[in-house]
């Protein structure tokens, strides 16, 4: 699955030569598809290309329409455009597809775009669409928030994570978000404010959760041989890996799980991405990890291989995951500060890493010229996509 480039700069390498966003948040009167077109144009402008240069596209949303219909505003050039609808892995799946098409020789220049537009409040997925009886939703079990709460509740008990650490993760997200002009939640919150906010699903309070929102993100990919002709500072997509759940992992929307523990899809995807890139977690200078709530960022730090279970308590206390720490995580404020437009989230992470590796992240730039980045998304019903990027 993870097609990787062992060398960099070879003709088979895949580089990101343009990245663009439509700001995240609430945008009344702007459709998801319009946001997608705005993000795609921004990415193309960043690359110095036009839509006519694009030979392949992939993209999608969870709830805001078919990505390929954006060609009616981008231009009817007749290129193959694959719609992707894959929950939280929509962006990662679109990127996987475009990467594979370039590696396969089907295109030299490709665009991926992810976007979404969700109403306020928790997601209300319907059990019938997830292979579960309607009783599961009727009785109040069909909630992603419950899953994340129960996963971190047990994790805290087993590995000694405190409520303060949960709050510190959220506080970091809002500080980073305050330095990001495209973020939704831009007001820093103190650890106390986060701990004292309304309890939503014990042990998680209101400000420890991200909110479904709106936004779009897009990337322009090019074959390695052409990348330097297009961009002076391409970022290489060293690997992209996408996995679904294996037997025994604890996943969203599970009426039962086995007594035998299995490897989560996050761990499988991260391992495949690192192996494919020939790069390890110790080499990463900046990472974006799915933080739909603050416990998720903590658990994903361990599942992706950046620390051992339980080490997070110390890491967070030391500020290791802050922008000035030794492993900056979610430098753009993550899902907590940006909200979660499902289709856009995974690509937003890649856009942020690209900006960091090019040294163009402004007020939130990681110091010391970061060279290697990592991204991770996770979602229902047990999917994960990870990338490794380098200059």
């Amino acid at each position, binding site marked *: 699955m993870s097609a990787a480039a062992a060398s960099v700069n070879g003709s088979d390498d895949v580089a990101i030569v343009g990245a663009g966003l439509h700001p995240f948040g609430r945008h009344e009167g702007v459709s998801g598809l319009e946001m997608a077109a705005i993000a795609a144009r921004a990415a193309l402008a960043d690359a110095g290309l036009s839509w006519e240069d694009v030979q392949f596209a992939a993209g999608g949303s969870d709830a805001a329409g078919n990505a390929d219909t954006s060609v009616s505003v981008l231009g009817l050039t007749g290129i193959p455009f694959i719609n992707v609808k894959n929950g939280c892995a929509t962006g990662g799946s679109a990127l996987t597809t475009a990467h594979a098409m370039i590696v396969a020789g089907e295109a030299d220049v490709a665009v991926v775009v992810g976007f979404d537009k969700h109403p306020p*409040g*928790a997601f*209300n*997925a*319907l*059990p019938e669409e997830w292979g579960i*009886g*309607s*009783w*599961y*939703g*009727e*009785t*109040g*079990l*069909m*909630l992603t928030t*419950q899953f994340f*709460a*129960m*996963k971190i*509740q*047990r994790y805290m*008990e087993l590995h000694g994570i405190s409520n303060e650490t949960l709050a510190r993760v959220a506080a970091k997200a809002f500080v980073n978000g305050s330095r990001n002009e495209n973020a939704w939640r831009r007001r820093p919150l103190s650890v106390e404010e986060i701990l004292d906010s*309304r*309890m*939503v*699903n*014990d*042990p*998680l309070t209101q400000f420890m959760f991200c909110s479904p929102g709106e936004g779009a993100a897009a990337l322009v990919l090019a074959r390695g041989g052409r990348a330097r002709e297009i961009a002076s500072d391409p970022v290489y997509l060293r690997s992209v890996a996408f996995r679904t759940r294996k*037997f*025994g992992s604890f996943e969203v929307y*599970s*009426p*039962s*799980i*086995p*007594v035998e523990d299995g490897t989560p899809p996050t761990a499988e995807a991260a391992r495949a991405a690192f192996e494919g890139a020939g790069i390890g977690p110790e080499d990463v200078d900046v990472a974006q990890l799915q933080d739909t709530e603050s416990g998720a960022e903590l658990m994903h730090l361990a599942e992706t291989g950046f620390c051992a279970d339980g080490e997070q308590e110390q890491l967070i206390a030391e500020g290791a995951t802050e922008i000035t720490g030794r492993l900056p995580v979610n430098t753009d404020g993550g899902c907590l500060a940006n909200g979660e437009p499902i289709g856009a989230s995974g690509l937003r992470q890649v856009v942020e890493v690209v900006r960091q590796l090019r040294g163009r992240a402004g007020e939130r730039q990681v110091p010391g010229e970061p060279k290697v980045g990592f991204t991770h998304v996770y979602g229902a019903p047990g999917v994960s996509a990870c990338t490794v990027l380098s200059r």
Partner: protein
Amino acid sequence: MEAIADGLFTETADGPRLIGSRCRQCGTVTFPRQSSCARCTSTDVEEHLLARRGDLWSWTVQRFRPKTPPYVGGPETDEFEPYGVGYVELPGECRVESLLSVADPEALRIGMAMELTLLPARRADGSEAVTFGFRPLAEGEQ
């Protein structure tokens, strides 16, 4: 009172039991019952009534009213009553996600003994029904 759905649980002389399935090839137990095994992919599975008692594996309290649909609950004009949710590990079988009879975080802890019970529920058409849930066992009951 009618069950919220057919095939989820049954009444026995010992009380309610959840209806799961067991793989005849590898012994894996799942709930609700399904026609194949997620572990070994076999389709040779049989109905299996789950144990009534287990330990609380994890829990939370649902403190906001879930959206309708899919949630039914009481009339939307009523004040929302938070409810407990947890996974109960039935030894050697599986961990079942379930409503809990209590919603007080002080009364819930991982590892505590739980027993299957029936709780009131409501169908989409407004009619009353029962669903399954787990309740903490008092010390004298264990």
